[in-house]
């Protein structure tokens, strides 16, 4: 490029591009018999030209700096078009006229995984709108950008633009050199589409969470505020001179106000996590320190409730994560486990590492009776392995009908009056979103007492009413033997590895 630049300086920008493309073709694709490298290099050059036209951040070809500057090795490297394309934060794909992917920049590889070069776009990206966009652009019409969202555990939204790139096959010098390449294919490769994926998740998320936050906050605060108002009215009215009642009411009012405070802080942190959810953390964090810190915080509560908490963990487990958020994550699950435990119960924490994680390992086809399990979040594939944290308690467990809804915000298990501390119903939702952000996984396995379910209640009342041997003895024996109830949450977080580029 640098050698050509002086000669080119007198030509117009477009001519220069064409010539530089041809030069590149000649340099990169010279002896190549196959068409793929040729096409890729042509496209890369075209991308370079177009990107300069679009972004304008870099000098246009006619404003090339002093040749002496470019001859410097590092500066010349800057003008390598692949390097430039790779430095875009937007994902870029180039599609040839046979709708095959022939080029992807670094951002695209990070977003969609290893690029399946040569595969047809329709088999890689199933979205009909994008397939249509590419078809239209290849036919030579211009189109409006289309919206594309990646479904999955973490949703991402993109605005996709399609731009036509025409590379004219200049006759003389190139044909002489590349005579070996089959001519008809060469002719077909004239038209390309460049797809640029602009990440608009932030905007979409912001608009949505803003609305959700207002709706949730106003809905959830309505009840405690109404009750506060009721007590205030009573205090101003007929309870005015009753010291005993006043004291009692003030206590209730304080509890309500504290609940509102917890609710607001939970909602705020949930919103904060949600907004950064699509950006996976890339730094290293120590899972072990996080668990220990959370454990220290929970210990006073556990002691007060007579719950023993034990921890089994190696000294250091480096994961890819955000230290404070990991602490929050551990704090929420451990706190939850302690609150679920009966007096004298045990909460067991186990931290270990695993090379790989498969849902099959925990969710076998055969589960013991009264036990149900669910993968609330499935972890992203991570070649480097996972840290696995298991938190088991001896609480009453969740009945099977509650399992599918765990992690949903404001979902509180109905009839759970055992815990004095009324939760906000957001604890597990926060855990779920933290795990999602860390591209980890969250599993729950729970064993609950059989009479906890609706059906069994009816059976029992029937049995009591008939008070005879309508049910055979084995049935009732089964019901009488105590079942060790409890819940086990399993959290897996991808480990951190040196030179880890970070996933998205």
């Amino acid at each position, binding site marked *: 490029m640098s050698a050509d630049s002086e000669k080119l300086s007198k030509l117009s920008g477009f001519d220069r591009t064409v010539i530089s493309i041809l030069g590149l073709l000649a340099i990169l694709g010279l002896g190549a018999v196959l068409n793929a490298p040729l096409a890729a290099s042509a496209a890369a050059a075209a991308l370079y030209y177009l990107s300069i036209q679009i972004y304008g951040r870099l000098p246009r070809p006619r404003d090339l700096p002093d040749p002496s500057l470019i001859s410097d090795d590092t500066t010349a490297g800057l003008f390598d078009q692949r390097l430039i394309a790779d430095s875009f934060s937007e994902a870029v794909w180039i599609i040839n006229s046979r709708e095959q992917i022939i080029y992807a920049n670094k951002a695209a590889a990070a977003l969609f995984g290893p690029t399946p070069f*040569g595969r*047809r776009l329709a088999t890689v990206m*199933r979205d009909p709108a994008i397939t249509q966009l590419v078809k239209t652009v290849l036919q030579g019409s211009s189109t409006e950008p289309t919206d594309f969202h990646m479904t999955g*555990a973490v949703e991402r939204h993109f605005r996709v633009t399609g731009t036509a790139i025409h590379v004219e096959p200049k006759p003389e010098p190139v044909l002489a050199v590349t005579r070996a390449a089959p001519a008809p294919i060469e002719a077909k490769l004239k038209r390309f589409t460049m797809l640029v994926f602009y990440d608009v998740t932030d905007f979409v998320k912001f608009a949505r969470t803003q609305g959700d936050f207002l709706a949730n906050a106003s809905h959830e605060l309505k009840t405690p505020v109404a009750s506060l108002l009721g007590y205030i009215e009573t205090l101003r009215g007929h309870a005015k001179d009753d010291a005993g009642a006043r004291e009692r009411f003030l206590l209730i009012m304080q509890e309500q106000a504290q609940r509102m405070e917890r609710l607001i802080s939970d909602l705020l942190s949930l919103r904060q996590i949600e907004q950064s959810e699509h950006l996976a953390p890339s730094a290293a964090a120590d899972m072990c320190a996080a668990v220990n810190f959370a454990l220290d915080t929970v210990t006073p509560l556990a002691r007060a409730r007579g719950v023993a908490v034990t921890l089994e963990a190696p000294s250091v487990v480096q994961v890819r994560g955000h230290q404070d958020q990991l602490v929050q994550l551990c704090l929420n699950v451990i706190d939850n486990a302690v609150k679920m435990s009966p007096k004298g119960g045990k909460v067991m924490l186990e931290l270990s590492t695993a090379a790989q994680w498969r849902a*099959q390992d925990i969710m*076998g086809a*055969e589960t013991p009776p009264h036990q149900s399990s*669910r993968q609330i979040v499935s972890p992203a594939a991570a070649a480097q392995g996972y840290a696995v944290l298991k938190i088991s308690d001896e609480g009453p467990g969740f009945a099977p009908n509650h399992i*599918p809804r765990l992690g949903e915000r404001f979902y509180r298990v109905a009839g759970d009056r055992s815990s004095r501390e009324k939760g906000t119903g957001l604890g597990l939702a926060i855990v779920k979103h933290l795990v999602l952000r860390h591209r980890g996984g969250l599993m729950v396995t729970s064993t609950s007492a059989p009479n906890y379910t609706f059906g069994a209640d009816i059976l029992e009342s029937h049995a009591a009413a008939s008070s005879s041997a309508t049910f055979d003895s084995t049935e009732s024996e089964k019901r009488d033997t105590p079942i060790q109830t409890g819940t086990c949450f399993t959290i897996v977080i991808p480990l951190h590895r040196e030179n880890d580029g970070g996933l998205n």
Partner: protein
Amino acid sequence: MQQQAEHIVHGYDEDLNTLTSALSEMGGQVESMIDDAVRAIKKRDSALAEDVIARDAIVNELQEKIDADALRMLALRHPMAADLRRVIGAMRAANDLERIGDLAEGIARRAMNINKSEKVELSRGVARMGKLVKVQLKSALDALLNDNADQAVDVWLQDQDVDALYASLFRELLTYMMEDHRNIQACTGLLFVAKNLERVGDHATNIAEIVYFSVHGRSLVTEALARSESDG
């Protein structure tokens, strides 16, 4: 079904790749139909529902194309072993996808009905189920297009989540109906939608079984049964 096929006869490869392309296109179409149908309920958007209903024709056309292509390949190329399973798998998957398209159309028709009544917040559970089913369908299609048997097993196992959610939703909607009989009309509509979504989940499971068979040449159901018997 995705590795670029490599056979001595170039046309054979072309045929296989075209089959995969059509299957992928069909999958994408069906995915977006389910997505839009659920959104039509969530956002009370009847125009979007009509759009979904119109798109069912595209899916039917694609199925006919896949069937014709597969038949032609069977007749002309006599595929063997993995190729044979692949071609048969494509036909079977196309059949499931066509059914999913019909179910999406059904949901869209219900949506237009539901949108005539007042209540909005009742549809939240259905939207959640829609999201879960969408993820299932996406994973099944990803497994199909990448020949990923492990992912297929995951999809197959997670179908119980969809079933459990359906049961829980059923109970929830029943409660609304008992609470206020004016809810009955909307809730019945939502029940049908939930049932349709649950069936979409079943078809995703079918596709997962097809993938497993296409990759290993063995039946996933039989193997899972054998495994659970030997375990317990």
